[in-house]
C-alpha cells in the first residue's frame, strides 16, 4: 500500500435499499484496513408506528472466507426514524466485514449504509 499517506476508502453497502426482516449486507473485503466505521442513515420508515423512538440492532459480522459469518461483538442501535443515524467502530477484523440486521415484522427502513475504512 502507499508509503506516505494512509489509504482510506468509503464503500456504500446499501444505497436506498429497504431493509425488512433478516438482512445482511453484501460481504466487503477490507484486509488492507486497520480500522472500520459503519454508518447507517435512515432515509424513511414504513409501518413503524409501534417503533417510534425505538431502535433496531445492527450487528457487525466477520468471516474467515467471505461465506461463513460470526458476530464480531460490535452492535449499533439504529434509530427507527427518518434521519436516524448510527455508527459503530471495529478493528482487528481480518479480511471481511458485513452488517446483520433483524428488522421487526411489520416495519421496514430505507437506509444508506456505509463503511469507512482506513489503513
Amino acid at each position, binding site marked *: 500500500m502507499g508509503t506516505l499517506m494512509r489509504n482510506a476508502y468509503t464503500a456504500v453497502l446499501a*444505497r436506498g*435499499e429497504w431493509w425488512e426482516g433478516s438482512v445482511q449486507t*453484501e460481504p466487503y*473485503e477490507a484486509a488492507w484496513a486497520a480500522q472500520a466505521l459503519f454508518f447507517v442513515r435512515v*432515509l424513511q420508515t414504513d409501518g413503524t408506528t409501534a417503533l417510534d423512538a425505538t431502535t433496531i440492532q445492527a450487528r457487525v459480522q466477520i468471516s474467515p*472466507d*467471505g*461465506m461463513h459469518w460470526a458476530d464480531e461483538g460490535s452492535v449499533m442501535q439504529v434509530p427507527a426514524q427518518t434521519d436516524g443515524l448510527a455508527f459503530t467502530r471495529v478493528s482487528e477484523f481480518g479480511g471481511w466485514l458485513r452488517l446483520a440486521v433483524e428488522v421487526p415484522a411489520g416495519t421496514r427502513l430505507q437506509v444508506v449504509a456505509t463503511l469507512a475504512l482506513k489503513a
Partner: protein
Amino acid sequence: MTLHAAAHPTHVDPRLSRYDPLARVIYFDDFDCGLSGWTTLVGNYENSIDTMTRSYARHMQPMLSQITHWDSGTHGAFDGTYALKIATRAVPGERNTAIKRVTFRKASKIRVETYFAFKPEANELKLSDLDVRSVGLLFDLQDGQQRVMPHLRYLNALDGQRMNRWQFKQHSSPFRAIGSRSETVTHDHLSPNDWEDIPDAGQNLCYNEIPTKINWHYLRFDFDLATMRWLEFQCNDRTFACPGVNSITIAAMPNLACMLNLVFFCESDTAKRSFFYLDSVLLSGEF
C-alpha cells in the same frame, strides 16, 4: 502496433515490462497501492434516490481483495497482495461494475490493458465453471458530435450453456427521463439485451480445475478517439481485428465534453456471487 518495452525510456519501472503501453501513460493503477479512483457506477437520479434505475441502484462498491479462499488461504494478485475485485450479488443475471472517470486532452488512439481473472464464489465443491456469465469493459466517451460507448465482454456462459466467446454491443435501451426538470436522463446500456458475437472471436480461457485456483489473463483493447472506431483487442495469445464492430452511439449530451470513462463489469449466470479480479489497469494514449 505493439511496441517492445525497450522502445520507451519510461519503461524503467519493471511493473510495466508486462504491458505494451502507447507513448503516453494516462494512468497506471496497481491495486497494491489503493483503489486509485475506481468506484462504483451509480445511476442518475433527481430529488429522490428512488428515481434511479434499479439495476444501477444495486451496483456495489469495488474492493481490494487478496483473493483468500477457504481451502488454500491467500492467493494474492499477479504481483503484490491486492487486486481490484468486482463482485455481483448471488442472483442470476446480477451484475456489478467499477468505473474510473477522466477526460481526454487529445482525441488520439487509446489503449487499455489489464491482467484479469474471474471466478464464482467457492461455496460448492465442484468445478463451477459456468456460474460466471461474463466479464467485460466499456468506454463511455464523448467528442463534439457524439457520445460513443464501445462495449466488450467475454461471454463465459449463458443460461447454463458454455459460450466462451467475445461479444460487443451497438444498440442500447431507450433513454428514460428522470425527474421533472428535464435535466437528467438514463439508459441501461448494460442490460442483458443487444449483445452480438464478434465474428470469429471464440476463445477458451484458463479457468483451471476448482473455483479456488485462478490464473491471470492479459487483455488489451485499442480504440481511436479521433474516428471513434474500434481498432483491435487481444486476450492472451489471440488478437482480434474488429473491422465491422461498432459502438453504441448517440448524440452528444450537454455536460460530457471530452469524457473518458472506463468501466469494468461482471455478470453472474447463477444464484452465486461472481468475482472479477483486476491486478492492475493501464490506460495509455498516442500523443
